[in-house]
């Protein structure tokens, strides 16, 4: 059937080419318009319970897009006029940033952070320095004491050594433009940062602003990689067609995939550029295989005879369609598994990747041989440097010799050791980020330096909130009215305080804040300031009174940081000093443990996980962790089933699993050694890797089978295959590994790490295809490669010969 398809394509090659050109022209139009941006919501697994809680409460208790400024005095503490002025200016300057939520600005120069004092009329509260700065030194001293006394400010917003203060601002998610916010925020910092203060700046809008900031560099790296790739192909293949055609395949695939993505309304996230590279690499790899085979067919023809490009191209296509399509099908099948994940980014990525991989079937497997069929003078070369003679053939000879000698056992033995060793190391692979700071950027990048200095001075810039309380929808109080004030329940408030204390035992949780923290100080103030009464009211009524006192002294909305309008829900806000996977998993587990240890409280107060940036990351990590084994196992399952189906042999499935599992384990071991965590960015690379790892082996084994079927001995078949298909493997691996190496110089750490991982993957896959798999094929002689029927006839012939001799 495949042969007919190949013949059909060749017969109507003009029509086929015309169609491809036409489609490419149309899709290029769309591809050109594709949106390149990061949409944070896409990273959230919408069906996860944490995300539901987060979405419900993010506007009240703080979303994921919080920007945090730290103003650090260069000399002495912040309580000196020039520094206070800077703090005031920065706070005022926030209003010049688009899309900020002005009700969510927290600064000692704002009106939300205040001092609470007792007075003749009860309780009053005053902003520390809003709207005016203090005037005299006495005013400053008074303010300093007031801040030192407030546990809600001293610690969370003013550092313990008094040299730094935090200013945080939240954004309206739907209005937020990361790039704009990034630029405006850094402009503000630039205006104010001088010799009196150092200003650090972190937060999600800034982080994604940085990714976009490096977009031009990313484009530059892509073009450098492409150039290196072209030069290498030209040097090795010695023909323009050997250079241009693989590139053309890559380009057509990319245009089709991006065009279709744009049509489906999928945007292109700069963070997935590595996946794009990986797929393009596959397109190129298939094209080079075609090219190599074509040249072999041409070389078979004697020099003095007329060469027929069309027939060479037809044979090439006919023979390579099976391993090529199988390779593409496994790639697509394996990456589809990622779509099980409830994370929209990954689902969209799967659509993009499957389309992209699918187009390779046309761009490489059809377009390359079709174009080759028109080559006029296939035996001419563009330059005399013949690397084939100098490097490639000698290397492939070594490969053949390894299989032919006892060295093949050494190869299998070594592979087994690597297998076991990396399998052992891979167990330590982390889920989530392995390092503090953002794994997207380098540790010495400005963002991570700023993040480190903020986390040194403060309990942490990253937040998670747990929601407490809540009433059933439509619940009525005893008078038939709306239920309000559920949180005032003394047991709930007491439970919240105990919960906060429990959570703070984890050292990465720098502080926790809730409405329950406000009440003891109000109570103490009412009890003449006696510290022995720094506790909650003893009854629900008393707590209601305390809350009322606080609200009367506060401005409307001040309490909304802690509770909803009806005071039926409250948040417990926790500050984290890092986003490491272990830290977050431990915190989440401890919340669950607390709930489990306090069943009566849970029934009453209904603690719910979890919002804020840490809550969102926690949900992503949980999804990835629970899907980690799932996606790898299912991807392998698909691979095995496809190989079984195509080769009609159960052993074939197992055989082709070997290089994939090996490449996977080595890469995982490398990740765990280099502290690269398994996160939303690495998961698709891992799944794609399963499909890709098998491509090289498919070409080599399919060729061995073909040669053996046509009557060659075991070793002859292996030798021919290694010198043809093996050459394609070697060339693509070499060229791609060098091109991928360009990413090591990326300013985005994530890209560099992914480049490293892909390079590693390609190396392991290529080495196992060239050494391990032929050795295994020769040692075990699986029947799907070395056809049984042919074997038996030769055996019969052999035995007939030996039988007849003595007679």
């Amino acid at each position, binding site marked *: 059937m495949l042969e007919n398809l190949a013949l059909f394509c060749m017969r109507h090659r003009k029509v086929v080419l015309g169609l491809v050109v036409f489609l490419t022209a149309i899709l290029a139009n769309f591809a050109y318009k594709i949106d390149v941006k990061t949409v944070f919501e896409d990273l959230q697994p919408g069906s996860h319970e944490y995300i539901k809680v987060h979405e419900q409460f993010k506007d009240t208790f703080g979303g994921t897009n919080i920007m945090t400024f730290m103003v650090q005095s260069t000399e002495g503490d912040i309580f000196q006029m020039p520094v206070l002025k800077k703090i005031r200016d920065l706070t005022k300057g926030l209003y010049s940033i688009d899309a900020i939520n002005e009700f969510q600005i927290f600064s000692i120069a704002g009106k939300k952070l205040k001092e609470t004092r007792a007075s003749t009329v009860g309780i009053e509260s005053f902003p520390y320095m809003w709207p005016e700065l203090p005037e005299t030194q006495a005013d400053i001293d008074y303010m300093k004491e007031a801040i030192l006394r407030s546990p809600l400010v001293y610690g969370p917003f003013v550092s313990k050594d008094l040299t730094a203060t935090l200013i945080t601002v939240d954004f309206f998610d739907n209005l937020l433009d990361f790039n704009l916010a990034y630029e405006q925020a850094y402009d503000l910092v630039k205006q104010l940062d001088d010799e009196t203060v150092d200003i650090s700046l972190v937060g999600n809008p800034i982080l994604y602003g940085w990714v976009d900031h490096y977009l031009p560099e990313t484009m530059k790296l892509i073009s450098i990689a492409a150039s290196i790739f072209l030069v290498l192909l030209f040097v090795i293949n010695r023909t323009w067609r050997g250079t241009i055609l693989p590139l053309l395949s890559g380009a057509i695939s990319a245009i089709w995939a991006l065009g279709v993505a744009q049509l489906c309304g999928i945007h292109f996230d700069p963070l997935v550029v590595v996946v794009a590279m990986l797929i393009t690499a596959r397109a190129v790899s298939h094209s080079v295989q075609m090219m190599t085979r074509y040249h072999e067919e041409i070389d078979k023809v004697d020099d003095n005879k007329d060469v027929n490009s069309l027939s060479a191209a037809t044979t090439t296509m006919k023979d390579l369609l099976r391993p090529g399509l199988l390779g593409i099908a496994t790639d697509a099948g394996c990456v589809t598994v990622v779509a099980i994940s409830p994370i929209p980014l990954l689902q969209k990525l799967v659509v993009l990747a499957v389309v992209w991989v699918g187009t390779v079937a046309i761009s490489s497997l059809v377009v390359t041989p079709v174009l080759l069929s028109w080559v006029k003078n296939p035996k001419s070369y563009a330059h005399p440097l013949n690397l084939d003679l100098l490097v490639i053939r000698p290397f492939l000879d070594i490969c053949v010799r390894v299989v032919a000698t006892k060295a093949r056992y050494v190869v299998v033995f070594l592979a087994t050791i690597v297998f076991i060793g990396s399998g052992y190391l891979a167990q330590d692979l982390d889920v989530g980020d392995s390092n503090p700071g953002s794994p997207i950027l380098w540790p010495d990048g400005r963002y991570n330096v700023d993040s480190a200095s903020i986390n040194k001075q403060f309990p942490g810039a990253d937040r998670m909130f747990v929601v407490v309380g809540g009433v059933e929808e439509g619940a009525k109080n005893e008078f038939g009215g709306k239920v309000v004030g559920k949180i005032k329940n003394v047991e709930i408030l007491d439970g919240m305080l105990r919960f906060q*204390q429990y959570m*703070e035992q984890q050292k990465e949780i720098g502080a926790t804040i809730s409405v329950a923290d406000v009440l003891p100080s109000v109570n103490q103030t009412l009890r003449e300031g006696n*510290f022995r009464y720094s506790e909650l009211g003893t009854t629900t009524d008393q707590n209601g009174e305390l809350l009322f006192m606080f609200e009367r002294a506060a401005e409307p909305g001040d309490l909304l940081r802690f509770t909803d309008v009806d005071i039926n829900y409250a948040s417990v806000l926790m500050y984290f000093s890092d986003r490491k996977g272990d830290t977050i*998993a431990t915190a989440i587990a401890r919340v669950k443990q607390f709930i489990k240890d306090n069943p009566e409280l849970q029934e009453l107060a209904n603690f719910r996980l979890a919002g804020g940036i840490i809550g969102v990351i926690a949900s992503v990590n949980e999804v990835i962790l629970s899907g980690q084994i799932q996606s790898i196992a299912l991807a392998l399952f698909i691979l095995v089933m496809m190989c*079984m189906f195509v080769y009609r042999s159960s052993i074939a499935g197992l055989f082709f699993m070997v290089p994939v599992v090996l490449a996977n384990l080595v890469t995982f071991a490398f990740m765990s050694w280099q502290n690269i965590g398994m996160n939303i960015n690495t998961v698709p690379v891992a799944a794609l890797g399963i499909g890709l790892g098998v491509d090289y082996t498919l070409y080599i084994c399919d060729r061995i089978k073909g040669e053996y079927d046509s009557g060659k001995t075991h070793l002859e078949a292996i030798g021919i295959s290694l010198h043809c298909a093996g050459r394609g493997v070697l060339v693509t691996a070499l060229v791609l590994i060098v091109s991928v190496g360009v990413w090591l110089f990326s300013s985005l750490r994530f890209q560099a790490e992914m480049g490293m991982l892909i390079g590693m993957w390609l190396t392991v896959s290529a080495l196992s295809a060239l050494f391990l798999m032929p050795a295994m094929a020769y040692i075990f002689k699986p029947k799907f490669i070395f056809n049984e029927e042919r074997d038996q006839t030769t055996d019969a012939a052999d035995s007939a010969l030996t039988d007849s001799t003595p007679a």
Partner: protein
Amino acid sequence: MSENNTAVEKTSEISNTAESIVQKIAKLIVSIMPWAIVGTLLWAGIFIKPTAVIEEVIPPVINVRDNIFGLSKVNSDVYMAVGNYGKIIISTDKGKSWESQTAPTVSHLQDITSWDENNSVAVGNNGVTLRTSDGGKNWIEVESPKSETANKLLRVHSYPDGEGWAVGEMGMILQSLDYGETWKQMREEEDVFMNDIVRVNDTTLFIAGEFGLIFKSADNGQTWKDTQTNSPNSFTAVAFRSPQEGVVVGLGGSIVATSDGGETWTYIDPKVSGMTEHLMDVDWSDETNEWVAVGNKGKWIKFSADMTQFDSRNLSDTDLTSHTELAIDGGSFLSVGQTVGAMEIKSNAWTLFAD
């Protein structure tokens, strides 16, 4: 010849059958294995959900959020302290490090007192009264008289032969004569806070009360007489350095002193002492020969026995936390509250032991 041949054939047949059995088994394994692996993969893909590895968190004995309200000096090395949520802790190295004990209550504990290394009593919110007779290995809650209105017990003190006195809200005065096993109410209920109590000699006791009131009993607590001092504020602590000389301190920096066994009390104006913050506890230091008091917002004060010299200080520049009790140890004192630390009285050097 033919026999030999048959024998050879037979052996080869036998070896053939043996071989074929081995081969069959091998074949069987080879044909089953792929499907077994495929099945395993499918099973793993559907059912295996790994769970995160959790780091163990070892909580510190004293947390940031712990408020330590009460302190008891058992001997020069051993201290016991109590705080919110039924916290009971013990130190055997002058407060540098602490160990937790298990209390049968989650009520906030306000004070603790010790007769010796074995016998101690702790009191607190909701009138809770705990005692131990084995150095705190086991704490048990004991019955004590309660009011219907409010029951917070604020201070407890111990005297030789198992005598103990506890005071609290609603004019509560309790006495125990058996190391805290049973308690007897020593005065009618009244809406006045009794904040601290001290025994001065065989017959006389003083109580620091609310609204500038001092209560005196000259008959071992059978009857009580109140004195209104010139202080407008409530008192929080009372201490005597001899049956004649004593001081009472309180909110707003109040200090009153007597040198005639409590017949008359002299009010020290906060302007004179330089102390306007609440004072929560007071005691006499023999070694430095002066009174020492601690209180809110990181303030402490030392003053001479003749009430002529006052020296009001901060614990440190940044520790503005509130403290409720102190225990003198030679030339220094241990102080508890929002933080736990030790102060060198002469040099004003503050060492923090716990946040």
